[in-house]
């Protein structure tokens, strides 16, 4: 059923849609190599890398921006 005026009262409810199923390549982050620059966190279009550099694979679409922008190549994209 559609709400009155198709209003959505559940902010952030898009989390129900796990876009992780979209990806072909999966990033893995080597925390040893990581220099805590924050680029990957900043540049992720999904915002799914936490401040502790954990990637939320439920949403990661595998775009590869994080791997590309990591200055020390701590992130590798691997075919899933």
């Amino acid at each position, binding site marked *: *059923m*559609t709400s*009155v*005026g*198709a*209003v*959505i*009262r559940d*902010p952030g409810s898009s989390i129900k849609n796990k876009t992780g199923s979209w990806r072909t390549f999966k990033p893995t982050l080597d925390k040893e190599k990581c220099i805590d620059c924050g680029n990957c966190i900043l540049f992720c279009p999904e915002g799914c890398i936490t401040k502790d550099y954990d990637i939320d694979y439920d949403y990661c679409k595998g775009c590869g921006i994080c791997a590309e922008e990591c200055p020390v190549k701590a992130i590798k994209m691997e075919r899933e």
Partner: protein
Amino acid sequence: MIKVMSANGAISEAVKMCKPKVIPVFPITPQTTISEYLAKFVADGVLDAEYIRVESEHSAISAAVGASGAGVRTFTATSSQGLALMHEILFVAAGMRTPIVLGNANRALSAPLSIWNDQQDSISERDTGWMQFFAENAQEALDFVIQAYKISEDHQVLLPSMVCVDGYILTHTVEPVDIPRQEDVDEFLPPYEPISYLDPKNPMSLGTFTDPDYYMEARYDMQTAMDGAKDVIRRVNKEFEEVFGRKHGLVESYKTEDAEIILVAMGSICGTIKTVVDYLREKGEKVGLLRVISFRPFPQEDIYQAVKGARRIAVLDKNISLGIGGVLFNEIKAKMDVNASGFILGLGGREISPDHIIEIIEKTRNPTETNKINWIGLKEEE
């Protein structure tokens, strides 16, 4: 308090008393003085509202949807080309269930360009989901604005509405208008309580995108709201009568009880028709008038009950849906089993005299080609 004013003045007084918080409005003949009276009220501090001098009617209605979405009572006004320019957003306002009230000075649509009265503009918006109330005079214009807020804001309705007044005929003539007391309006019309609004304390997303799984139910809900609005209108009419002493309805029956010929029309022309009806009744003719006040929601039961006893009815249209004919005529024919003749008149401000009404009654009494569109007041080819 009785004051002499135009329908534009009356609408403005009503708006002032209903206390909208945001008024985006763009001027257009013959609505212009509404935009001016409201600006003056705000400038004088007698109306505490944010007046937005928008740069077009499309922006006027867009800002109104934004403001209503943000949870406040709003008002705008327009006419003809302006209403047409709003067309896209009228559907959105209704679909987003924003209870905006709009004052429309009925004016012909270009082309050819005309600033004079007919009802094409609001009639052409009949699909939008907006309720439409046609006032016969300035008093009704005032009363309908106040009632419109109460009807639109009802949680069972939540559809925007427009109060229609015939351009120039009502907007640029004056008559005595009884302006109610603010306390009475406050008692009758409580503050607006939105169910959807923009507030960081309770974030909602308004104006979303629906795929085929959701759209149809939203439209069904709107039709349900329109149907239910008829009862809300009746209830609000009754409450209005109790507080202010004036009676209104979805329709007005004028000497229809035993009428053989009943004219059906909307707006100020009904004043002329009532005069003719009185005149003919004196002469023993059984004629009457069924004035349609609420065009949307379409009050088919009320119309039918009033006209079913007539031998034949004459439906007057100050509009034409090119390619088929007058809209009110076609809608009545579609919704009920009545003998009816349809007449197109008054387009682009063409004068309608009592003689024209008599001509209509004659042509209804003795109809000739019933499938032809009857034009009244058209100039003959030399």
